[in-house]
């Protein structure tokens, strides 16, 4: 064993810094990409135009402010005489939607008149029309609701405790307190017979990015094995204590061990930087999958060039399957995803069932040609 380590070290030393770079690249890229996406992700906004036909009273201003402060909307305000311009921009697909607050908007809101307060315009490419509309509707409902509350409370006061005096501000702050303090109604979506997967709040789960980068770069890193296996030097191993294939398999094990150490580091770094966890068991299983896959592709590919291309293709195909997953109907298909797709297995914390298959293929590969060639 010691000799195997020494010989592998001899081969690695001339290219050590390059190998280390490639080993650390998945982590580095994951951090870079996740940070970039999380940083700029919030700034991706839906461009919405609002036209105020009538006067901009307190209510209107309040609602527009809330809309402006919304995290996913970028609001542009227009006056009545600019309405045509706004609609024209919408037709040019420069806005996702346009909302026209009609002439009587302010009046109707203050008088709890709910009919036709807003004209909503959208196009065939309004990807976010519905959530924006809902947002605006919520804000309006909220205001109208509060109005109703005041009315009701005052009417109750008059009936039951006419001597008490309460201000609207008081009621308003009570509403706010209750809103924040109470455990209000929530809702949850689950699927029959399946476990719910955990939700990640931020834009991009770093582990997903890491998984795909690792799959691809792991395959890339096995180009050394590819060159060794297909090079001339293999003949010399006929006269050594260990066969060439065995030597390569030992190298695979050593490489996997080193990568697992790096993965452990990755685990702690990603956890502390992004606060996202993943099952250690699934992580180990995933790493083994990547190593076995990389190794098998390396011994099958005719050249490093072919290896890199197959690495890229495998990654793209797995990514495509992952994206299409929500469409997948049927228990069987979903099960297949969870247990066969390496990235999905990692995220759901299960062992990938392709592992034993890959191991079997390697065993077959090792056994083949064990006799003298003819």
């Amino acid at each position, binding site marked *: 064993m010691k000799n195997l380590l020494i010989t592998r070290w*001899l081969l690695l030393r*001339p290219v050590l810094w390059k190998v280390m770079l490639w080993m650390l690249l998945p982590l580095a890229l994951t951090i870079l990409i996740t940070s970039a996406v999380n940083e700029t992700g919030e700034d991706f906004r839906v461009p919405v135009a609002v036209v105020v036909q009538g006067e901009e009273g307190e209510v209107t201003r309040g609602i527009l402010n809330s809309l402006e402060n919304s995290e996913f909307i970028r609001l542009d305000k227009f006056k009545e005489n600019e309405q045509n311009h706004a609609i024209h921009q919408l037709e040019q697909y420069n806005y996702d939607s346009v909302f026209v607050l009609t002439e009587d908007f302010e009046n109707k809101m203050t008088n709890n008149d709910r009919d036709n307060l807003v004209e909503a315009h959208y196009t065939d490419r309004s990807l976010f029309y519905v959530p924006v509309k809902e947002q605006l509707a919520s804000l309006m409902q909220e205001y109208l609701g509060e109005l109703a509350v005041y009315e009701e409370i005052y009417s109750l006061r008059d009936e039951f405790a006419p001597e008490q005096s309460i201000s609207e501000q008081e009621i308003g702050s009570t509403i706010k307190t209750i809103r924040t303090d109470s455990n209000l109604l929530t809702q949850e979506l689950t699927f029959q017979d399946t476990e719910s997967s955990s939700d990640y709040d931020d834009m991009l789960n770093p582990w997903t990015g890491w998984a795909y980068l690792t799959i691809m770069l792991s395959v890339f890193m096995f180009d050394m094995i590819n060159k060794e296996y297909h090079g001339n*030097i293999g003949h010399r191993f006929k006269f050594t204590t260990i066969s060439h294939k065995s030597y390569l398999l030992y190298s695979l094990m050593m490489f996997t061990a080193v990568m697992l150490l790096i993965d452990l580091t990755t685990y702690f770094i990603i956890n502390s930087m992004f606060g996202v966890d993943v099952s250690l068991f699934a992580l180990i299983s995933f790493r083994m999958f990547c190593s076995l896959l990389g190794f098998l592709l390396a011994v099958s590919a005719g050249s490093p060039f072919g290896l890199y291309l197959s690495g890229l293709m495998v990654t793209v195909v797995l990514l495509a399957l992952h994206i299409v997953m929500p469409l997948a109907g049927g228990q069987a298909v979903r099960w297949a995803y969870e247990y066969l797709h390496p990235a999905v297995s990692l995220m759901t914390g299960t062992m990938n069932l392709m592992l034993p298959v890959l191991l079997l293929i390697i065993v077959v590969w090792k056994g083949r040609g064990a006799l003298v*060639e003819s």
Partner: protein
Amino acid sequence: MGHLLKVDALYKSYGKEPVLEDFNMQADRGEIIGLVGENGAGKSTLLRIIATLNRPTDGEVYIDEQSYGKNYKKLRRKIGYVPQEIELWEELSVIENMRFFEKLSHENRSVPELKNLLSELHLEKYDTKVSRLSGGMKRKLNLAISLIHEPELLLLDEPTSGIDLKSRIEIGKFLKGLAGKGALIIYTSHDMTEIRELCDRTIFIGKDPFYKNILTDG
């Protein structure tokens, strides 16, 4: 005591093409034997069969009266094979290549011993990367690696092909020294002068009478 190497009615064909037909030979320790013949005569094939790298279609090979059969892995320990192609780690230095194969060899050799072997071949650029060596130096290293485990039978496939005269002479001297210590050396080359100078006897393989005649003409 029997012969170190005995080849009995060896027949080798690739598909329907026979490469070696009814080949026989015997050789003893301390001999240097030259194999000559035209291109494609089967010299390399014969060497590879004796080196246990290829299986004969028919016939038998014996080392120390043990037939290859199932013993071939064990018998490999007695064999050193120097291929026609240079089979070295280009990115490693001379001594690193030696150390690498020593670690995987059946024999343990210390670094001074390895360096000694190299200096016998006048290859003292221990720390030079193989990619920077001249053709002659690479051939010497190619040879040196095959000697790490002190084989009794040494098979060389055109070991001096394309190298300078000085290196050629050095290798020749070295091989004579090895034979003197009891190794059996089988050697292929296209250079008749080299064959005549180095080899105790020559075996002709192939069908081209040109080579046969040159042998007999001396």
